[in-house]
């Protein structure tokens, strides 16, 4: 997963020194020492000079193993870049990538075979990467593999680098203090099916009727036709030119908006994850169809909006959502509300609300 692309070494920010280090013997190291001791015993017993040479080489290996990569490890600096997955979030159970920048501060000593590890809190998973080689004075950007076991927003505080190079006798560890965050999404689900189709007419009807009511303001853009748009609203000339149906949009008229109301059980993690995944899928579908979307969750909510930053904020909020049913707030204007309910909960149907009960609605 290493990109191997060297970055420019010049940087305004200062690279932080390691916060700590620890060198420890491995099992292979103990075996190595045992074999070395056997060599000297055999050499003494037989007075065979070749065995004394082998013993000397064994001692040399022991000394060099501690020095070579130990010095190199202390010259390493690491910086967190961030998650490079979709919407800068990792996925539960799937390979995602988290980017780091590593610099070798040594002027002449290259480093080889360095492992990078970050552990997510509460055993939620880990981030691992491997740097096979980093030349002296160079910086490399690496993509670490994220293995996350559950959804959440996790704080990262310590990046650990370790190596057993060159002989595998001792493990040399150094760690760097660095604060970061990792958003882990549940496994994605496909939602552009019946669920959104069910909600879609109401969303667009609300927006279109307002457009028609106002019909004031200037034409400023075209948007793709979606089922539910009146056929009369289709701009036929542009449709013929672009070879796909489009409808005009007018300034001063609000975009269609969708509010997702998420209800989680707080008991069944798998069911709650499915509900969150369904909500995220709705957000993505809505964004693709240029529908403003907001979320009403238990401990926080976000008004409908659009844009990639808004989308990321929504996903982050959903990923950290806990149980408890949210309270329904009244909106100033007419907004279509879609309620996503964990399948672990009983029926909670409210009037004028499209209900998606995961995963039945996802079939």
């Amino acid at each position, binding site marked *: *997963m*290493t*990109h*191997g*692309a*060297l970055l420019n070494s010049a940087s305004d920010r200062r690279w932080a020194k390691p916060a700590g280090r620890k060198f420890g013997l491995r099992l292979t190291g103990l075996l190595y020492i045992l074999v070395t001791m056997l*060599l*000297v*015993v*055999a*050499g*003494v*017993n*037989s*007075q*065979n*000079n*070749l*065995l*004394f*040479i*082998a*013993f*000397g*080489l064994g*001692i*040399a*290996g022991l*000394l*060099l193993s501690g020095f*070579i990569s130990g010095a190199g490890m202390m010259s390493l600096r690491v910086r967190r870049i961030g998650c490079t997955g979709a919407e800068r979030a990792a996925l539960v159970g799937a390979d995602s990538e988290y980017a780091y920048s590593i610099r070798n501060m040594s002027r002449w000593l*290259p480093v*080889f*075979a360095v*492992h990078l590890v970050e552990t997510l809190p509460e055993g939620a998973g880990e981030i*691992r*990467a*491997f740097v*096979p*080689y980093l*030349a002296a004075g160079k910086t490399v950007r690496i*993509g670490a*593999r994220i293995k996350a076991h559950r959804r959440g927003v996790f704080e990262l505080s310590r990046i650990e680098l370790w*190596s*057993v*190079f*060159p*002989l*595998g006798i001792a493990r040399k560890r150094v760690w760097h203090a660095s604060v970061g965050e990792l958003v882990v999404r549940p496994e994605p689900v496909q939602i552009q099916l019946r669920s959104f189709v069910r909600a879609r007419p109401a969303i667009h009807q609300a927006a279109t009727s307002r457009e028609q009511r106002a019909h004031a303001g200037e034409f400023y853009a075209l948007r793709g036709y979606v089922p539910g748009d009146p056929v009369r609203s289709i701009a036929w000339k542009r449709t013929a030119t672009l070879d796909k149906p489009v409808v005009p949009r007018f300034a001063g008229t609000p975009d269609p908006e969708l509010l997702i109301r998420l209800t989680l059980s707080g008991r069944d993690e798998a069911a709650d994850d499915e509900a969150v995944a369904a909500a995220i899928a709705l957000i993505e579908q809505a964004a693709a169809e240029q529908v403003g979307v907001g979320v009403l969750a238990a401990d926080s909510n976000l008004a409908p909006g659009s844009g990639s930053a808004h989308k990321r904020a929504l996903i982050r909020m959903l990923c950290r959502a806990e149980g408890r049913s949210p309270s329904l707030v009244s909106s100033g204007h007419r907004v279509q509300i879609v309620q996503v309910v964990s399948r672990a909960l009983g029926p909670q149907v409210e009037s004028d609300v499209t209900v998606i009960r995961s995963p039945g609605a996802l079939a």
Partner: protein
Amino acid sequence: MIRSLFERSVFLTTLVGTTAYIAASGDLSLGLVVIPLFILGWLITSRTGGKRLPRAVVLMLTGLATAVASLAMFADEQFSVETLARFVAILIVVKSFDRASPRDHAQLIALALFLVLGAMVTSVQLIPGVLALLFLPLLLGSVLLYHIDAGRAILGDTAAAIPPRGFLRDLSVLGSVTGLIAILISAFVFVVVPRGIGDAIAGGVSGPGVGSITGFTPELNLTAGGTIETDPEIVLEVQPEETQGAINAVAPPILYLRGAVLDVYRDGRWRASDPRPGQRVSERMVADVWFAPRGRLPSGTERYRISIRNASAGVSPLFVPDRTIGLRLSVQGQVSWRRDLGIYKRDGDSGRLVYDVLVAQPTSSLALPERSPVELFENEIIQALAERVLRDAGIEPDPALRPVERDLEAARVLRSHLSRTHEYSLTRPEIPFDADPIEYFLDNELAGHCEFFASSLVALCRTVGISARGVAGYVAAEVNPTTGGYVVRRSNAHAWAEIERSPGEWVLLDPTPTTDLREIHQPETSVLRRARQFLEVLEQAWVNSIVAFDSNRRERLLGLQQSSDPTGLLGIARFLEQLEDLIEEGGAAALGAGLLAAGLTTGFGFGLLWIYTRLRRPRAIHEQWQRWPSEAMRGAHIEILSAFRRLDDPKPDGRSLLKHAELVGNAPLLHASQVLCRHRFQGGHPESELSDAMQAVSRVGRDHDRT
């Protein structure tokens, strides 16, 4: 690239390790089985893309090998390096069919390492030693590459982790420096570790070849033994003093080295007589001080330096030429001397033994008119034969009637008769159970080896009242032209006779036919022989510097001989002082040569690895970029690069074209890069596709310039 390099390195490491053990043990049958099977297994797993044997088969084979090895050890009733090494060799073969992950390759490396250790225990000869030295850089390279390959394998991605250029260079430099430092540390430990302490404390686990003089026996048994020794292994070297001039390497004079005098015969066995009081002299000899048993060191002597490669611990003979009148050990030690036999023995540690001898020139002094009491050899048939031969030659066989002056002549007549009528053969005659071997050889078989000739001459002489005795030792008849000294092999073990010309004055008389003697001990010069002699010079250097390094040499090097420094710290200080003196006295060249040799040995291994990988490695991507199949592609590449520059986003070194195009995000440039790569590395695409893409690139450049 890393995986491929690692696998090749492991292959070579395992092959060299296995070969080292086979060379050390001389077990050709093991080599003929293991090495081809190992290569076959390796090729099969390579061709099948790492498809390995089923786990059940591997377990079954491993279990079978373990069971066989256990049974072999149980049958031997002791731990045997040979059995263990055979077991490891079989595991290597099984593993070569069962390799896929870096872990499997690491196991192969470990098994090969154990075989090399087995080779070190089994033999101290040059070839296994050189292979073990060659194994060192290969092992280091394999281990270094293992950690890199294993780290990548854990993450399961192999394509994206190709390190940029400079990786191999840095790894080679690191490996070379590490290897050199390791050799220096090892040399330091080698010198500092005390010798002679704890010898055989855990029993005789080590193999043969340490502390034994082979080929020579201090007794002769004519009724036992088959073909005599034919092994060409070098036992000792005899170097004449430079002032004596060079020896004729083509036809050198034969030098007889006495090891044991055999003057008592019974039931087909010759042995030395027990010493009478005053006949044995035992003396603690100081290093480098001459010991002259007869109390005089006359002028006109020859001087030789004799190096026994591997003297056994305890009492062992010092081989000296005929007419030796002085002895000087290179280290202090206990030497005993038999005045009546002229035999020297040393009591000390095993290992290399070096001493100088002074040899008197042959004299032509007249024999004194007296005869020592002769131990008669009572055998009527032999006596009748001797009397008949002497009468035929006109010499009186009765000692009472024959003048003392004619004894030597009579002995020579008997020797001539033996040489003329009997045939030399390396095979022992089939002697009947109740027959005397000498009588049977003289009267029936008429063919035998040197022991029969010598015994027969002694017997013939004694039956006619001539004082004679047998001598066992070596003949030095082969000169290495590089060193200018004699080389003595196990196959040069020999027996001859001595005749007492006057009381206490013995004359060497070898009854073995001269032609046969030269044919056996002085082989003809050939190209192969010269190559072998060159190798033997290297082996001599190897033995002298590594194998024969003992406590005396260590103490001398560390300056510990005249001190009571149990910790050795003072010695280390003296060693450093001596090193300083050595450099000041112009020994820097020698020191530099030593370091250079160590560096060259390490560099040689890395060089071989480098050449191999250079020849075999698939061309790196950046090298392939230098070779364009058509000018159109080359031009397209240049145009794309210049388009990047025009966009103020030039492609940096070390980043692939495709990667850079993705990062820049310009669609026409990305498309053109993709098309170019497809054309360059896949082929079979229409030329028009590339030209269309390049037109789009041209538009990008023009638009940007216009903007």
